[in-house]
Each structure stands twice: as C-alpha cells, then as structure tokens.
C-alpha cells in the first residue's frame, strides 16, 4: 500500500521529468565531462597534475583569495546600502513601492555591458564624476577611481545590489508592522524597537541576500575586466585565459572545480550555521533556526549582545535629546528618522538608477572617445551602427531570435515542472527543486565551458540550436522560480469550482487557470527573454565569428577599443529594453485591472 502510493506519486509527477532530463543532459553530463578532463593529461592518462599545479604556483590561490575578497566587500557594501532601501520599500504604501521598485531594478534590467560602459563614462580620469568634483572645487586633480579596486567595487555593487534588496524585501514584507508598534506601546524608543525587534527578524533576509551576492560575485569577470586593473583579476578570467589562449582544457577544468568547490563549501557552511531553508524567504524557518542558534551559538550570543547594545545606545541618545529639547505634547513633531531614511534610501536609489543614462549623451559625441562632457552633436556613431558592413543589426536579430526560443523552451519545460513542484507531493521533492534551480548558483563560466566542450564535439558551436539550448539551461531555473511564486498565489478553489461545474482538467487549465495566471506567465517569459538577450558568458563560448550575438559583439569591441559606437549600441539597447519592460508592464496592468 505505502509502496504503491509512493510510486503513484512519482508517476503523477511526470510533467517534471522533461526539466530534470534536460538538466541531466545539458548541465550534469557536460560538467561531469569537464571534471573528467581535469583528471587526465594530454595523453589520456589519469593524473592529479592539474590539481597539484593549482597549489604549486602561488598565482591560483592568490587569485582565489582576491576573488573571495572582492566577493566579500561587494556583499558587505550591497547589504549596508541595500538594507535602508529594502526597509523603505517594505514600509511604504504599495503603489509607491511598485514605482520605487522599477527604479531599484533598473540596473537589473538594463544590459550588463551597457551599465559597465556607463561607469566607464562616469569614472574615467576625465569622466563625469571627476569633472563634477573639480568643477565645484572639492578636488584639484582628478582621482583614480577606475581600473583599480574602487572601480570594481562600484561596478559590482551597482550590478548586484538590486538582487540583495529584493531578497531582503521578501523577508521584510512578512514582518508584522504591529510588532514594532507593540514594542512602542511597551516603552521602547524607535531605535530600541528597531534593533531589538525589527532587525533580528529581518536577519534571515540579510543572510539570504548576502549569500546570493557572494556566490554570484565569485563568477564575475566582465566588471573586473573592464573596470578593474591587472591586480583585480578574478578566478573566472584565469579559466578563460586557459581555454582561449592555452587551450589547456584539463587545467581549465581544475580551476573550474576549485571555483565550484568554493561555492559548494560556502553553501555547506551557510546550511550548517543558518539553514538553507532561510533561502526560500519565509520567516517561519528562520525564526526556529535562529532560536536554536541563540541557545547554542557563542557568536549568536555575541551578536545579540551587540544588538541590545545598539538598542541601548539609541535609547540613551534619544533620552539625552529629550532632555535638551523639551517636546510640546500638544504639537505634532517632524519625523526626523523617517526623513533621514528617505534621504539615505534616495541616494542609494539614485546610485542604482542614474548612471545608465549617462551613456545616452556620450553616444552623440563628435569625438572618437568616451569623454565627458561630450563634444558637439553628431549622429555618426549611429550611422556606423547601421552601416552596410556593420555586424550589429544581424547580431541584434540573432539575439532576439535566440532569446525568443530560449524563453519559449524554458517555459515549455519549466512551467509544467513549476506546477508539479507547487501542487504535488512526492518523496525527494526538495532535492529535485534544489537540482532544478542549481544552475542559478553555478558560476556561468562552468556551464559555458563545459557546454563548449560538449557542443564542439556535436558541431553545435555557432548554431542557433547550440546557443538556444545553452541559454535554456540558464533561463529555465528563473522561469521555474517565478512561475512557482505565481502558482503559489493562485487559489486552488477556482480550479475546484471549475471541476464541480463540469470542466475537466484540461478545460479548467485552458479556460480558468492559464487566463488568470497569464500576467505571471508573461512576466516569467519576459524575464527569461531578457536574461538570454543580455547573456554574455555562454555567448562568448557557444558562438563564433560568423554567428554571434549582440552582447558578444559589444564585448569583443570593448576589449579591442571602447569607442562611442558602443555607446550608440548601448543607447539603442536601453531603448529596446525599455520598450520591452513597458510593454510587459502594460500587459500586466491590463490583466490586473480585470482581476483586481
């Protein structure tokens, strides 16, 4: 009875199998091939020489340490700057929140390369920032804030903070606002109740956001390559060097495994200390895990002490202030803490949203460099983009086609999987879920390099099919996560009502479920489309000279020489993305109006 019930569960979960099979073939198998390569020498004999070389030469461990350092600083800055923004978003009325989120997410939606070019315009010796600081007299000479660690930090924090804000926001939205009010009625000052009540409850979001930023940072290479100096080389760049220049697959595999091992180790410790369940964002799991920590962990006890101390300091300052300035109980007083929160969060949101727009004026310059301020006005760079011999129009078309199909396939296998993961119970569900979303946290270079190796044998390099399959590996997990959130919000009783009214399962899906979650499905598709459209890592390896995408062309151009043509392309791309986002927002609103 129990066995047959268990098997029945597996059989009824059949719509999830295409997704599992897809990842086994195009994620697990190629990665296993890469692991295999790292353990054999050129003659095919088993060897550990690649791995011993990692540690014999100080270079690789040193670069790993630099990578960890960059990731740690990025995480720290992203959390500190992102927290006030997330706090503000969680505590304003929802219409305002939706508007602010668009600005916070702006860097997330605008192409990665566009953002990086924008920073080049801003940070250069003659860039907008130095220009401004000298003009207002703060500086006498330009300072160096690009092609060094500072440049890398600015670029990476800018790129990753939106992710951090969203993760923290997910937790903060679930914190009952009455809790801090209750603390207030019990005599806690605002500072007290924040540090003692709100902050500890939001910690799981901070931890989850931090983990995502840290792990994602480890796989970065565009920002350090374009905004950093020679000393800021990161581990991914070493892998690329081994493949591009040395053709040493075995050693590239070994470095990849070192990177993957680091990621897994971080997840292992995170799980040990905080519990992976906190990642899914629910407050429930976190409360219990932090409670157990509170009982045992010395570190946690220290943390509690610090929090209580901060609470006391705030209370003390407040009491002191009260002594100095007698409050008139008959007059309402200005809310200074609210005002300063707006100022801080406003600066951060400006940092996130504004830089991208600096690329626009530069694209109209008459000069041959990305200089600030742009000289004169000319359309020559746009003429170059659309010239007869320009590769850009064709590359753009290719990118659109690839993104459409990658989005389509991701939906085709991801949506059924998401339905099963939300609605069906079966043994090992959490393991399968973790497996299906694991490409998100795997550094993309590993996916790209291993698929490169596999597809080269299948003659899929430089074909639509190869790149579409590769991009589907990356986009499908995002589709699954997004669609799962949509289905979780769907009221199953609507389906039950349709069944009792005489509609079978398929008719219910077609007439009731899909129309209602249509907005969410469109959003998931747009998400997948934009990820694929902007994807560079896989494009570098799975395309070739005759067949390349828009980001790949921009990257190749940027490595050779950054010129205003790129600014023109970036401006056009910005325009295209804006149209897409406005269009999907329009579709969403139209749907919302009806459903209310």
């Amino acid at each position, binding site marked *: 009875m129990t066995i047959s019930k268990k098997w029945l569960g597996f059989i009824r979960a059949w719509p999830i199998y295409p997704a599992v099979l897809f990842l086994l073939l195009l994620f697990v198998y190629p990665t296993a091939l890469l692991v295999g390569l790292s353990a054999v020498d050129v003659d095919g004999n088993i060897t550990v020489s690649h791995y011993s070389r990692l540690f014999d030469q100080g270079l690789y461990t040193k670069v790993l340490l630099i990578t960890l350092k960059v990731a740690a600083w990025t995480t720290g800055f992203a959390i500190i700057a992102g927290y006030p923004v997330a706090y503000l978003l969680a505590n304003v009325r929802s219409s305002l929140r939706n508007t602010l989120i668009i600005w916070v997410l702006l860097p997330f939606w605008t192409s990665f390369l566009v953002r990086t070019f924008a920073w080049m315009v801003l940070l250069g010796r003659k860039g907008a920032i130095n220009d401004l600081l000298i003009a207002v007299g703060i500086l006498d000479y330009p300072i160096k804030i690009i092609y060094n660690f500072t440049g890398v930090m600015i670029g990476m924090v800018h790129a990753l903070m939106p992710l951090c804000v969203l993760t923290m926001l997910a937790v903060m939205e679930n914190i009952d606002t009455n809790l801090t009010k209750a603390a207030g009625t019990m005599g806690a000052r605002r500072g007290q109740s924040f540090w003692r009540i709100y902050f500890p409850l939001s910690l799981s979001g901070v931890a989850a956001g931090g983990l995502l930023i840290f792990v994602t940072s480890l796989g970065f290479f565009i920002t350090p390559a374009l905004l950093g100096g020679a000393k800021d080389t990161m581990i991914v760049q070493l892998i690329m060097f081994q493949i591009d220049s040395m053709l040493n697959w075995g050693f590239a595999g070994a470095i990849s495994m070192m990177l993957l091992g680091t990621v897994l180790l971080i997840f292992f410790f995170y799980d040990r200390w905080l519990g992976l369940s906190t990642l899914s964002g629910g407050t429930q799991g976190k409360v219990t895990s932090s409670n157990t920590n509170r009982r045992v962990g010395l570190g946690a006890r220290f943390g509690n002490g610090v929090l209580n101390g901060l609470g006391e300091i705030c209370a003390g300052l407040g009491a002191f202030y009260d002594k100095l300035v007698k409050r008139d109980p008959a007059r309402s007083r200005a809310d200074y803490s609210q005002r300063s929160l707006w100022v801080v969060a406003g600066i951060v949101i400006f940092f996130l949203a504004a830089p991208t727009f600096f690329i626009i004026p530069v694209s109209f310059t008459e000069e041959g460099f990305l200089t600030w301020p742009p000289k004169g006005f000319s359309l020559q760079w746009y003429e170059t983009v659309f010239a007869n011999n320009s590769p850009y129009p064709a590359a753009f078309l290719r990118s659109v086609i690839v993104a459409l199909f990658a989005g389509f396939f991701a939906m085709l296998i991801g949506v059924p999987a998401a339905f099963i993961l939300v609605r069906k119970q079966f043994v090992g569900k959490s393991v399968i879920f973790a497996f299906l979303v694991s490409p998100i946290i795997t550094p993309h270079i590993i996916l790209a390099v291993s698929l490169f190796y596999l597809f080269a044998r299948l003659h899929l390099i430089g074909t639509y099919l190869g790149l579409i399959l590769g991009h589907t590996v990356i986009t499908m997990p995002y589709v699954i996560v997004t669609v799962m959130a949509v289905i979780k919000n769907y009221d199953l009783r609507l389906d039950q009502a349709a069944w009792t*009214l005489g509609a079978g399962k398929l008719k219910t899906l077609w007439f009731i479920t899909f129309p209602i979650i249509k907005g969410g499905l469109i959003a998931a598709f747009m998400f997948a489309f934009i990820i694929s459209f902007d994807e560079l890592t896989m494009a570098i390896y799975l395309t070739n000279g005759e067949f390349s995408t828009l980001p790949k062309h921009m990257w190749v151009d940027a490595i050779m020489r950054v010129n205003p043509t790129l600014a023109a392309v970036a401006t056009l791309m910005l325009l295209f993305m804006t149209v897409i986002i406005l269009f999907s927002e329009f579709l969403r609103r139209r749907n919302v109006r009806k459903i209310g």
Partner: protein
Amino acid sequence: MERQVKLQAKNVRKTYGSVVALEGTSIELLEGEFLTLLGPSGSGKTTLLMAIAGLNDPDSGEIWIDGELMTYTPSHQRGLGMVFQNYALFPHLTIYENIAFPLKMRKMRKAAIDEQVARVLNTVQLPDVQERFPSELSGGQQQRIALARCFVYEPSIILMDEPLGALDKKLRDSLQREIKHLHANLGITVIYVTHDQEEAMVMSDRICLMKEGRIEQIGSPADLYFQPNSIFAADFLGESNLFAGKVVGQTENSTSIQRVDDIVVSGVCDAEVRNIETAHYMIRPENIRVHSGETNEDNFVQGKLKEIIMIGQLTKYFLELADESEMVATALTGSRNDPLQQGDQIYFGWSTRDARIMLSS
C-alpha cells in the same frame, strides 16, 4: 410520501500522512433534504464534503450518488454543484461568463444560455450585473452570483462549504433565509458545511454533528438541541449547565443523580443510558426559572446571585452555589428595573422533563 435516497457515503475514510482526517463515516441523504455538517475546525466536515464532491480521493469506503457508485469518479462527471466559502468566482470572467461557464461545459446553445443566465439572475435578484466583473460586486452580491452559477445548471445535489462565513451578521441572516427559500422552491438536495451552530439550526432538516473525524450525533435540530447524546453535543449546540454526579435512583420516567455537594436532581435519559453509576446532567439556561424565595419546582438549587448581564431581549443570571460552582439561567428581559440585585440569595428551579442525563464519556 416515499422519498428516494439521493446520496450515500459508506465507511468513507481519509488520511493525510499520519493524520486521520475522517474515520470510516457513513451518511445517507434523501431527495430534497437539507443536511448540515456541523463541527469545529478539524472535525472532518470539509473532508467529507470534498470526498462527496470528488475533490479528494478517500482511502477507502464508497460514495453512491443516485444509485451509482462514484467514489473515484472525477468531479466534473458527478453533476454536483458546489458553493465555496470565498465564492470562487472566476476573476477574469464577467458575471455573465461566470454563470454561463457550466452551461458551456454542457455544450448548450448560445440562445439557451442567454435565457438561463437571465432567468437565474432574476432568481437571485441581481438582474443588471451581467457585464460586470466579480471584483466590482460586494461580498453579498458575489455570494448570490456564486449561488446563481450553481443553480443555473440545476444540479440535483448542491454542496455548500461555509458559504456565508465571510459575510457580516446582518447579511448572513438574510442570505440564510434566501438559501432556505431557494432550497424549498427548487426542491434540491443540499449538504451544507458550517461551524456556526445557530446557522445549522436555522437552515437544516437534519444536522450531522462531527467531532475529530467522526459523526457525534445526527438528527433534526430539535433532536440535537433537546436530546443531545453527549457532553460535546450539549455543549456545542446552545448554552447549557453541565455537571457530573452519581446515579442514586431510577424510576420509569426519570433518573436522579447526586452532585458532589450532595444536592440531588432528576432528569430524563435514553434507555441505553440506564444502569450506570456516574453520569452527566444537563439543563438549558432558558429552562431554568429564577425565584427570589422557596419554590416547589421538581428540582431547585439555592445560591448567591453573582452577576446579572442584560443582552438585549434576554437577561442572564449567574448563580454561585455553596461549593462555588456556577450555574446560569436566561430569562426574557422584563423591564428596565430588575427587582433582583447582585448578592441576593435566590433559587433556580426547573422541571425534571427539561433536564437530561447522559453518559459522562
């Protein structure tokens, strides 16, 4: 008049993991009957309803509808109607499209659909909302549309899962009567789930009281109110004074029990409850009369008037007995100036035929 058996559930059992949601449960419903499944949350009433609707698969047992075995028949082939607590109106369809949905699924022609939708909207007194979306209606209106969507295809059995749970009291009262009238006029069979005992008594032909996955008692509202079989039933429906005692005497018509404070009181009991040593004694507050002096009622107790609470048309009197236990009596509120005062020594008296003796377990 011989009525047909409309629905039978035989030994239906349902578990979720290790939790038994429904023990082997059997009920039978006659054509045109209004049966309410009443019980606290977690009593299995919704589980039973869902099994009848085909929205969950029972582990064992059988469900017969109109003489046909339908235990595992998919919901859409059972020809039932169901009204949900949150109405479950399709938010992306207009009121017209919502009500037309079951007719479309039955492949009815457009002209016939138009006619039926208009007819049923008249029945629920909302003739002018066809083109609106559900979100543009009030809660009470939405519930009427949910009823209309259910009545329109004339299912022979309608299942209602706490359909009025989300409405405020005034609206609930009027819709209760409306559903009752629709039931009477259309001659449909209804299974109604609620945790509100008052609602159950207002609406039902029979009430099926459930507790912890099994049926506690089934019978007419009067049966359950006046002859509860258990402490749970006595407590769940209406208010009651309940206490334990030792059986000290029995005649043909009554049984006497002795309270811990040695007061002896008498009441009636079913035959199967005879020949026991200890029992529970129940008397409804409205069957108790309050006396300021000695009384010659069948049963009486003396004590101190602890509290008087006026709740509109009724007034509640709380009596503290010598052993500090409490009893409550209700009476129609007489006048503004109650002659009784807090702290008075008074008497509660009642007739033996109004009191009931039941098993303690």
